[in-house]
């Protein structure tokens, strides 16, 4: 026990005497949280529209007016040239082009069907689908107005539909993203700091000095991992305070439960970091391997894109992704107030994962030294 305390003491001194590192560990993640929380939204605020009006009639102007009157649209150009429209799309000045054909008003007044062409830049498929739907509904609206004006029968909806959003009625995206970003920051700290630290001893050669001392393997490993476990949990506490004070994210569930899950989760992360460090000899390699694991874990975690819509084999991969479990759980606890019973399955799996990861890592460690 006394040996362990000495090792821990040494690790903390080593960690905190590097002033630059301390600043990076504590300030950088918080700054990132503050900035990045605002970036993660799919909500479209404004659509840049180019109107090609080949008719130049009262009706075509009325239709255009329908768009310029809406806060969702900004008409970047109003021309009668398809080439200019294409140029705007190519240069990213416009996202959508509406082409009103020459016989627009004539077709309308003779009671025929007037066609309007609607082109959307679909490189970002998800955004394109949304923009398309918005614009179609504006045109639909315009249609209804015409029907009313021409004295036609207004078709009333036969079913009354209503909807509501639970747990986040204003659809605030920050509520969703901040817990997820917290998980990321904690993970990055745990994974990189501890993994790199171990490999550093290997690279510089000081590990051999430690190996010849009477320090036992388990003492050494605990001494190496425990400080980062503590630092990451402190980091999480800071992050939660920021989330509450700055973003006013609700924490409906128990804070203790969040820390319980985080404590288990960090064991998984540290186990993985230890494993990486047994497989590598230089800090560069360790960093590279961790980076690879991390990018796969992050992008496959359901943090940015829903797991539900992944193909089956990809869902199977997410079973081995610790970030996916923690992201899901922290969102459940904070936003829905889920209790221990609701998250039992995820927590159990994390515990199993932690035991496996640590056991394998420790076992591997013994073999290599």
């Amino acid at each position, binding site marked *: 026990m006394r040996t362990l305390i000495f090792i821990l003491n040494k690790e903390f001194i080593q960690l905190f005497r590097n002033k*630059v*590192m301390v600043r*990076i560990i504590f300030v*950088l993640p918080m700054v*990132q949280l503050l*900035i990045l929380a*605002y*970036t*993660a939204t799919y909500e*479209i605020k404004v659509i840049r529209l180019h109107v090609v009006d080949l008719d130049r009639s009262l009706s075509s102007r009325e239709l255009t007016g329908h768009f310029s009157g809406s806060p969702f649209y900004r008409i970047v150009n109003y021309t009668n040239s398809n080439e200019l429209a294409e140029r705007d*799309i190519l*240069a*990213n000045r416009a996202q959508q082009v509406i082409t009103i054909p020459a016989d627009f008003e004539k077709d309308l007044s003779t009671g025929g*069907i007037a*066609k309007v*062409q609607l082109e*959307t*830049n*679909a*490189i*970002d*498929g*998800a955004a394109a689908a949304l923009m398309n739907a918005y614009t179609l509904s504006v045109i639909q609206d315009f249609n209804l107005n015409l*029907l009313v004006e021409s004295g036609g029968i207004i*078709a009333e*909806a*036969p*079913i009354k*539909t*209503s*909807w509501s*959003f*639970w*747990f*986040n009625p204003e*659809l605030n995206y920050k*509520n969703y993203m901040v817990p997820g970003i917290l998980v990321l920051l904690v993970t*990055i700290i745990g994974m990189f700091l501890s993994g*790199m630290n171990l490999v*550093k001893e290997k*690279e510089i050669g000081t590990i051999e000095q430690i190996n010849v001392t009477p320090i036992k393997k388990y003492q050494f490993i605990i001494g190496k991992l425990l400080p980062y476990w503590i630092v990451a949990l402190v980091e999480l506490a800071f992050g939660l305070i920021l989330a509450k004070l700055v973003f006013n994210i609700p924490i409906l569930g128990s804070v203790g439960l969040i820390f319980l899950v985080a404590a288990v989760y960090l064991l998984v992360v540290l186990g993985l970091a230890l494993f990486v460090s047994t*497989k590598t000899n230089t*800090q*560069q390699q360790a*960093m*590279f391997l961790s*980076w*690879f694991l991390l990018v*796969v874990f992050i*992008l*496959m975690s359901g943090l940015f*894109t*829903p797991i*539900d819509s*992944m193909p089956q084999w*990809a869902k199977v991969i997410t079973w081995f992704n610790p970030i996916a479990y923690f992201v899901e759980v922290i969102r459940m606890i904070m936003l*829905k107030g*889920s*209790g221990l019973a*609701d998250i039992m399955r995820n927590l159990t799996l994390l515990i199993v994962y932690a035991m496996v990861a640590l056991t394998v890592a420790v076992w591997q460690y013994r073999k290599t030294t």
Partner: protein
Amino acid sequence: MRGFIIKEFYHIFRDVRTMIILFGMPVIQILLFGFALTNEIKNARIAVLDHSKDDVTMEIINKIASSGYFILDENLSSESDIEDRFREGKIRLVIIFEQNFAENLLKGNKPGIHIIGDASDPNTASLLVNYALAIIRDYEADLIINQASFNMIILPEPKMLFNPELKGVFMFVPGIITVLLMLVCAMMTSISIAREKEIGTMEVLLVSPLKPFQIIVGKVAPYVVLSLVNAVTILTLGYFVFGMPMQGNIVLLLTEALLFIIMALSMGILISTIAKTQQVAMFISLAGLMLPTILLSGFIFPIENMPVALQVLSNIMPSKWFIIIIKSIMLKGTEIVYIWKETLILILMTVIFIGLSIKNFKIRLA
């Protein structure tokens, strides 16, 4: 000079483990993400609370369940179950039908459907509610058309440009190329130079007759080659496996990629002039570059949607400009006249990074 570059090449290529990761990683990532990541929502689990249980509600439920967007998970029996189900996190949406639905519909009493979305994930919730509404509207339209009193006057003809099938991979291929090039160039260089400092071999290099400029060129040359190989691998995979089109000029694309690589390398050098140890270098490039490159560049989330302050901030992210360039060339087939501004910005950034590095580079070590 040549000898020095050859030494650096040996230094990197003899490390088999790093090589495997370096060349294997892009392949695995692009395959994994290309197939797995999508912003569309399919197969969301939903529950139904049907107070009426008649032919009409059955018909609507079937229509919803067979749409491909939803999987009917269970039939709830009371309102009090809803919150529990949401809390367990299994279902995303609940659809409630009021009593005597068919009867009210027939009498023209406008029976009600209420949809509840689990908005702890607001993106998914609003999309799913809209999908469900569209299906119900569709059902209504069928009813109305039977009464033949409604006709469209203006008929919009939607057309999706550049990506008619709305494939998500068109977003991810440019994004992953950018993230990887950033990693390989900026991170690897900054760390490898910091390593020489930390181990002490930097002093050996500094007292040699090589000029600082030559030392740096020698250090980064291998990474230029590596990164170009990686970029070509990803582009080839994107083209053959995912059917990414190559509308524009491939020479132009590779030239732009080279420019981006040089930019990232000079950024890496700048970081290494600031950082004393590998750990610091790694954390600056990792924490400073990884999340911003993913989130502030338009890789996953469109920049236009962000608050104005962040839109301004995104302008200093080199990755933003490079992603615009790749998309323009590959998907739109644009020529240099449309992207000269973005190209100029990247050149400018490179010049600034190199200038700052030269200013910071010290021949003497403390």
